[in-house]
């Protein structure tokens, strides 16, 4: 279950933004030659192509770098410790690093026909559907904050930001809504 006792730094809903409920996250770092084995153990194909994400039934994996994935647990998986323990057990003797970052970052969904423009207010990437297709994910910048941006549908983006930057990003997104 998403845990309602986890504090959210966001103000809340607006026209285009929806703070996402808390979910478990981990950073998995594993060398290229062990990726296949890790994928097999996790029953989840860690994406190899740069800047792409895959979603399994219980977990999503975002390519952040050639040896770095953000694993995202879906809601309904219990508390973070169990989730982490489960993955650790699955990975077994795969030489890798798994670190719980469930609370390091928080997520916003930005959606609607103006989502692209609201993001173009602070993100220098070309966000058109051809340049940034559905399923693409990457670290980048929104104004002066580092974010992870993941396009889940033509008009729906998932944005992750470190917790201390959340208000900064949210304030700018809200200004973008009224100005862009």
């Amino acid at each position, binding site marked *: 279950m998403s845990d309602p006792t986890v504090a959210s*730094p966001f103000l809340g809903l607006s026209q285009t933004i929806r703070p996402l409920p808390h979910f478990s996250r981990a950073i998995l*770092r594993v060398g290229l030659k062990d990726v296949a084995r890790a994928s097999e153990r996790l029953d989840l194909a860690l994406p190899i192509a740069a800047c792409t994400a895959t979603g399994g039934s219980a977990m999503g994996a975002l390519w952040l770098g050639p040896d770095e994935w953000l694993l995202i647990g879906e809601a309904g998986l219990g508390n973070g410790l169990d989730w982490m323990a489960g993955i650790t057990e699955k990975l077994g003797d795969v030489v*890798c690093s798994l670190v719980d970052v*469930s*609370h390091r970052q928080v997520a916003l969904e930005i959606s609607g026909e103006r989502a692209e423009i609201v993001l173009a207010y602070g993100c220098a990437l070309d966000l058109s559907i051809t340049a940034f297709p559905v399923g693409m994910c990457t670290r980048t910048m929104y104004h*002066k904050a580092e974010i992870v941006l993941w396009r889940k549908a033509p008009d729906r983006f998932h944005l992750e930001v470190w917790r201390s*930057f959340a208000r900064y990003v949210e304030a700018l997104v809200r200004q973008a809504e009224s100005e*862009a």
Partner: protein
Amino acid sequence: MTSSFRTASGGRVDRDRPVNFTFDGKAYVGLHGDTLASALLANGVHLVGRSFKYHRPRGIVGSGADEPNALVGVRRDAARYTPNLLATQVELYDGLAAVSQNRYPSLEYDCMAVNDTLLGRFIPAGFYYKTFMWPKGAWDKLYEPRIRKAAGLGVAPTAPDPDVYTQRYAHADILVIGAGPAGIAAAQQAAASGARVILADDRPAMGGSLLAAADTTVDGEDARAWLRGSLAALAALSNVTMLPRTIAFGYYPHNWIGLAEKLTDHLPYPASGQPRERLWQVRARQVVIAAGSIERPLVFPDNDRPGIMLADAARTYLQEYGVMVGRKAVIVAAHDSAYRVAHELRAAGIEIAAIVDIRSPVPAAQSARDAGLRVLCDAKVEGTRGRLRVSAITITADGKRETLACDTVLMAGGFTPSVHLFSQSRGKLVWDEAIQAYLPGESGEAERSAGACRGRFALSEALADGAEAGRSAARDAGFSPMDLPIPSAQGARACGGGGHIGAVPTGADLSRAKAFVDWQNDVTARDIALAAREGFLSIEHVKRYTTTGMATDQGKLSNINALGIVSNVTGRSIPEIGLTTFRAPYTPVTFGTLAGKARGDLFDPMRVTAIHDWAAEHGAVFEDVGNWKRARYFPRHGEDMHAAVGRECLQVRNQVGIFDASTLGKIEVVGPDAAEFMNRFYVNAWLKLGVGRCRYGVLLREDGFVLDDGVVGRLAPDRFHVTTTTGGAARVLAMMEDYLQTEWSDLKVWLTSTTEQWSVIAVQGPKARAVLAPLVTGIDLSAEAFPHMSIADAQICGVPMRLMRVSFTGELGFEVNVPSGHGRMVWEAIWECGRSNGMLAYGTETMHVLRAEKGFIIIGQETDGTVTPDDAGLGWAIGKAKPDFVGKRSLARPAMIAPDRKQLVGLLTHDAATVLEEGAQITDPLDPRAAIGHVTSAYHSVALGRSIALALVRGGRARMGHTLHVPMPDGAITAEVVQPVFLDPEGARIHV
């Protein structure tokens, strides 16, 4: 309601919508669609300003971005006053209040005009360099303040800008700059290929020269009707973004172009909160520059009186705004465009007293004569008359000197391609002898110029050139151009290249007369000739010596004539003289637009911890540490910092305090080679650190100086919890990644930042254990089970906890790491539990005092990039047996082991009440000439009842017990050198 100089019909102004405005407090009426300049001219007002140096009366010269004189201030309210706007670009709105600049007390009577009549001949080129050289020091105190008062353009507003400015990144396959005929033709072709096109134009109405194209057809249709249809068709396309009122002000590397879009300046009542301007940062695959051309003024004596204008500007006022710039005009011609102007103005009812052509007879002259116009050829221009408005011009033609009465003199000097953006893009300019102008040559970027800005002046040429540019841009951007037909124009009188450069032939003595080259900076032909004679041969030097081209108009009108004059005086060709650099911005851009959202609270990210709101609710005073907000102290009942910190310190020493240490950097180092990595990276020995134990780590740069420090805990054989300083978190992680990725790829170890995963709640003081014990589960906090420098995972308040027993205060201490989403909940639980134990919350200032009492260093305070571990008294931390670690080799360099290095010591002032100033220099009373060190930290210690200080002192450890001086303005403060540990040197308070 018609103004006296408005034609009965014509133009694109709305004659049914009169607009009231004021200029210098006087009320006028214009029409919707006017600029301030066209509305003033419609009211017969030419005099709009005083010149920069001589305070000569000045009128409107041009009709667009090239205007040098008509700088005005527009005031909406006290905070919304914008100086230095061009009246030719200010759109009229109801209630507009504009004022002239650079005059005192009024435009008509300006006291400073004495500069012109009396002092004028004493302000030659290089005046500032020659005159204000001495006496030494007089520049700051005497000259500069007076010059600043007398000079300067406009007045800055005094209140903060209340407007909102917005911004957007955009990506275009093809960016077309300029929506004149070439730009529109290019956009049509580019858009037809399916490419994403942005079309930007600085004016409110797109169309450029087409807006004033009378008697012209395009594709068989009236040119202005064709324009309307073309723009509507472009606007209807989903792949085209049309940006009127948008100036492309800067062209930066890799096709990165800055656009400034004006959103509300033309509105009488902008909606509250609506952005005033938008900064577009456009990345374009291909750029088409269709920036058009700038008309050349003519340099002749007294060519700056109000009523003396550019000829095509006069035609533009007539055709676009239905405004007659005067009743009776003389046109000074150096280019055939004069004849087109003459015909169109006469048709509107303006008397053309004569066309004074400085050239030998041209075919157009004969047809003008046939049409009944008076044309004088091979003419010289001797001067003009008129105080606040030109009243006559004196010329010589056919050997006869003649004074022609008039109220307007129009200058037709030809056209200069606008190559500013091309030049900014690092394209190479090439001098074209036939056109007598610099044209775009080899591009430095994925860019092409089209139309008048590359010398294709005639309408049909410009349309064809634009269409071809649009097609090739589409091709180069990876699209297949459609073969749209190229628009063809008829009836437009072709205006080709040529024209005149430099001073116009005259019988007058140009070493005495004022023939202006740069209107805005008051630079005359005499000044430029003088500079050339004084040996300034490079145009870059002439520019700086005379200031020509250095005003806000960046020499749009003046540069080419300055070149011509230098060429004449030095006998060198224009290409030999070279060209000054064209710099961004093309026209001035507001600071608001450039700043965008980066102002106020959003200037930088304001990083806050999960406990920040609690601290704010409890009255914390915050300080900035990097981007973080940290609680500095918690004053009660109007306490000042000194009182609050004293109280907080005592409470921690005697009872217990709670402190938000969440901002500390945290890195989880994981992998089979984690210990080996730590061993290579930090100075300490890590291989034997037991699981569950912590160690204070010191990190050097490769040059041997201390970079960072922090406590490191071993969670498992292959897992370390590394803490860094708050400010060093990103730096240390980046440096670790650097070594792992580029030097030690043999190591199987990975790094993950966990700074924000954990809220860190420090509980410090003799009662710390008592406070925490009831809340934790799964761990025994006793001294035996969990001694100082232990780390363990357990639970607190039902959530996971990573507990460290560490102390930066010298007291029994714990740092409770909990997932940050639970940070505030746990903090409040500890707070509730602690209150019965006398707990209070303390801030960074108290933390600083407590650690200084213990002699613990702070990176960046006791270190400054030149401090070795030994200097800082941290030599004990180095793993002596290790063959290598980052920075080890540097520690063996001779200078790093010299005995007189600055070493960390304590200082106790002889007067216990005196707190030294941090940063103060330290001298040896036996040899006071040189500073031997400086104070790094100094506080009043309540626990010790006196002041304490830490300092870096040359050979400090050999000076124990010595008295040193800290010289201050009121005399030296004496202090004794002591060990840098003031309290509990045995550490008895920690190990309980």
